[in-house]
């Protein structure tokens, strides 16, 4: 039964990930039917490549540390404190996640670069330093930590910590001995995700780092797409595989202790109005960070989109509706680009939820090494560059019935590959935390396994499912890598339209790019808000999750 659930995810990964990637790597390493493993040594002994490797690892580590440092207090505030505008803010901090890197780079340059805000205030310029890259990474990944760690934190029963206090533990000791162990899996999962993201960072490094900083991902893109040097690209892909594998192994080692069974309660009951100077200070601090780090760059974009030559106004937005000036047909009207983006994102989310949900359900109970291995496998797409997957598609999905090379479905498929790990990561900790005795009790009372799942697990993971859907949707909306070079019929998504506008000279194009970015931000924020809204409310008479707290 459990293995039956795995059929869909395994098939999906075999066809759309393992096979294409293996094929493109194989083509690089096999010359005339003989494997050229000597190439590995050649590539790895080059000082340039070693330098790239070192920088990639170093900046990913620094970005992850910085993100956790800045975002964990945020996770606490969102989980435990109740304040007006919380839902809106939760959606807002997720917006960076979907912005195309092109746009983020522009916004950060406007902040940190020459004549930027920092330059005007204190004469500080960070645009060609590694700080710009690190800050942009925090900007991107803040939501990852806040949403995944905060999601679990909000469901931990505060009474457990209170019990520890009653038994004489100090506030800090109670947190360290009760809450922290319960959060550890979620924190390390979030940290791992951030590390993977920053390790494979592409656009941010390209724009903010200039030609002096290059990551493995950028290098793989160049070798594959620009130089068609498949052997080198194959070696680098293997290196990235090894690195990602090492990260995953490390992760498995740190969470060797399985997620303990937690008492999950309805998040609505755990958040309270801030009390005491400490909590108010924390809330103020977190809000200040959000304003400076997230709202400011977004604000710069909005400001640029309204800053028309004739003073502030909606001129650029109006220009978006025309089919381009002078009969030019460069742009589809933005309505259409928005619709394209949303359609792709809906399909990608559907695929990611189906595949990821089934995988998470199958992985809920440890069922031996095979399943654990699959758990790790699911993470691999995050560590493989989009260009490798895209080019792999090209040489593998070229025969009926799977000649998808010219089909629109390739784009959501590639996006879903990135979405699935999110879905699994967000759902697994919660699913594993469900007390198995509840399922057993349901079974004893005559429920079929499916019915037991529906009545016991689902109410508790509904929240995680929505968070996961939000992530998958957001990833897909802003996804730029695969969308750009997987061939697609000419129906540009928002990020692609933005990039095309930025790739042309002239004020109207630049302004329209900023306007479209603003629209993209809004579309994302609105979709996320809708997701927040359909979160189930606690019903009078107690929800199943209440009952679970009383077992």
């Amino acid at each position, binding site marked *: 039964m459990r293995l039956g659930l795995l059929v869909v995810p395994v098939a999906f990964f075999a066809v759309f990930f393992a096979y294409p990637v293996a094929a493109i790597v194989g083509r690089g390493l096999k010359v005339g039917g003989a494997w050229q493993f000597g190439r590995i040594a050649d590539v790895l002994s080059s000082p340039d490549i070693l330098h790239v490797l070192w920088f990639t690892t170093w900046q990913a580590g620094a970005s992850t540390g910085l993100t956790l440092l800045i975002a964990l207090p945020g996770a606490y505030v969102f989980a435990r404190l109740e304040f007006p505008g919380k839902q809106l803010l939760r959606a807002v901090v997720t917006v960076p996640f979907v912005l195309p890197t092109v746009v983020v780079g*522009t916004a950060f340059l406007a902040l940190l670069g020459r004549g930027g805000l920092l330059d005007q205030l204190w004469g500080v310029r960070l645009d060609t330093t590694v700080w710009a890259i690190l800050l942009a990474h925090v900007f991107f990944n803040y939501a990852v930590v806040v949403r995944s760690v905060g999601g679990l934190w909000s469901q931990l029963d505060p009474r457990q910590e209170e019990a520890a206090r009653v038994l004489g533990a100090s506030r800090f000791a109670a947190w360290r001995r009760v809450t922290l162990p319960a959060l550890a899996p979620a924190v390390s999962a979030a940290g791992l995700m951030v590390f993977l993201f920053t390790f494979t960072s592409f656009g941010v490094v390209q724009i903010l780092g200039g030609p002096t900083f290059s990551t493995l991902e950028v290098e793989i893109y160049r070798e594959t797409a620009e130089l068609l040097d498949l052997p080198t690209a194959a070696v680098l892909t293997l290196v990235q595989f090894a690195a990602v594998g090492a990260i995953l192994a490390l992760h498995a080692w740190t969470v060797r202790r399985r997620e303990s069974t937690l008492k999950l309660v309805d998040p609505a009951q755990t958040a309270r109005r801030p009390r005491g100077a400490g909590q108010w200070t924390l809330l103020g601090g977190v809000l200040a960070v959000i304003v400076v780090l997230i709202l400011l760059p977004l604000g710069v974009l909005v400001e640029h989109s309204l800053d028309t030559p004739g003073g502030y106004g909606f001129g650029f937005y109006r220009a978006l509706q025309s089919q381009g000036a002078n009969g030019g047909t460069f742009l589809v009207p933005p309505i259409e680009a928005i619709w394209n983006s949303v*359609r792709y994102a809906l399909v990608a989310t559907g*695929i990611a939820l189906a595949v990821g949900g089934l995988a998470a359900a199958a992985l809920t109970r440890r069922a031996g090494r095979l399943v654990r291995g699959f758990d790790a496998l699911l993470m691999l797409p995050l560590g493989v560059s989009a260009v490798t997957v895209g080019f792999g598609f090209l040489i593998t999905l070229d025969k009926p019935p799977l*000649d998808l090379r010219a089909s629109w479905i390739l784009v959501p498929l590639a996006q879903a590959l990135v979405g699935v790990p999110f879905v699994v990561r967000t759902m697994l900790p919660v699913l594993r935390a469900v007390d198995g005795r509840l399922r057993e009790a349901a079974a004893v009372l005559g429920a079929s396994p499916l019915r037991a799942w529906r009545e016991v697990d689902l109410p508790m993971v509904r929240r995680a499912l929505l968070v996961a859907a939000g992530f998958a949707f957001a990833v897909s909306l802003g996804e730029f890598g695969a969308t750009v070079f997987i061939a697609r019929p000419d129906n540009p998504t928002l990020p692609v339209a933005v990039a095309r506008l930025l790739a042309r000279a002239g004020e109207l194009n630049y302004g329209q790019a900023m306007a479209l970015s603003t629209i993209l931000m809004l579309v994302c924020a609105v979709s996320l808000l809708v997701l927040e809204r359909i979160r189930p409310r606690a019903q009078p008479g107690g929800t199943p999750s209440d009952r679970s707290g009383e077992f």
Partner: protein
Amino acid sequence: MSHPRRNSVSTTTRASRTRRTLATKKLTVTALAAALGVSTLAACGSSDSGSGASGKTAKASKTVTLVSHDSFVASPSVLKEFTEETGYTVHVLKSGDAGAALNQEILTKGSPRGDVFFGVDNTLLSRALDNGLFTPYEAKGLDRIPADVQLDAEKHRVTPIDTGDLCVNYDKKYFADHKLAPPQSFDDLVKPAYKNLLVTENVATSSPGLGFMLGTVAKYGDSGWQDYWKKLKANGVKVVDGWEQAYNQEFSGSAGGRKAKGDRPLVVSYASSPPAEVLYAKPQPKTAPTGVATSTCFRQIEFAGLLDGAKNEAGGKALLDFLISKKFQEDMPLNMFVDPVAKDAELPPLFTEFGAKITAPQSVAPDTIAKNRDQWVKSWSSLVLR
């Protein structure tokens, strides 16, 4: 196409079914929305001109697929005329920048995704020809195209479609304010008067950057170009990764750059950038805010060819004829900001009024580029970036 579509719908019904069993009503809404999204998509699929693997359906003979890079744009009205004249509907597939699009074609050689490929330029031409990407075809109307752009006149594996000149652009206002004459040639750029003013693109990652470097190779020869770049580096040239960043953020003369407070009044861009600055400004200025240093240009020529293994060869040939027809040639400039190759195609007033006429651009033979390119890029990188 029927296969992928059936495939996708069945995945989704499976997806929504699984989820519906898993889900509450609330979630069913999402699932339904996704399913709806897919079914509308699938429905749209048929209205998109032949969405999916071209040449597998009954419509195949009526659809001709053009594979190109992201910059390809044509007016729908012009494409419609092609359909009226020939009965073929053009289906455009885009896949990344010029280099990436070409490399994807090389990877899928023999089983191409389309019938015609547009967008291989003279810096990449040898790679395409050496890989045997194209079937020879002499397009109708080739006699209207100058011999100097027909780089494969022997075999006609590719047909020239447009040209574009890569030149240094200057910010007129800056030079007027500083009472300094703008530079005109490569030699000017290394003079102390222009210290710290030029921004260019990374040769390894940007085609304008590469073109500018090739221009210096053509001008100073295999022995002299590295010395020239040493001087340029000593004179404070700034290198960024891509054209967007150089032009929209560092260059003080462009709209984006003015907003980003760019402080470099010289940038490597196209001869057609000033007309774009005029066209996309509201209200349109009387003169362009930027000018072109006319002796710093390198000419790019873009070609199209009939893909080897094309499923619709007849349609592909008709499309190639059409790409050099007067109608299409005159449609290109305002869409792609390139110059037509056909002698009888007239430039729009915007180009004649605000653009620069480049009389003697630099050029390097495609096979010379192919032989030395990687080495040149490596030398340039270690010379300029380290």
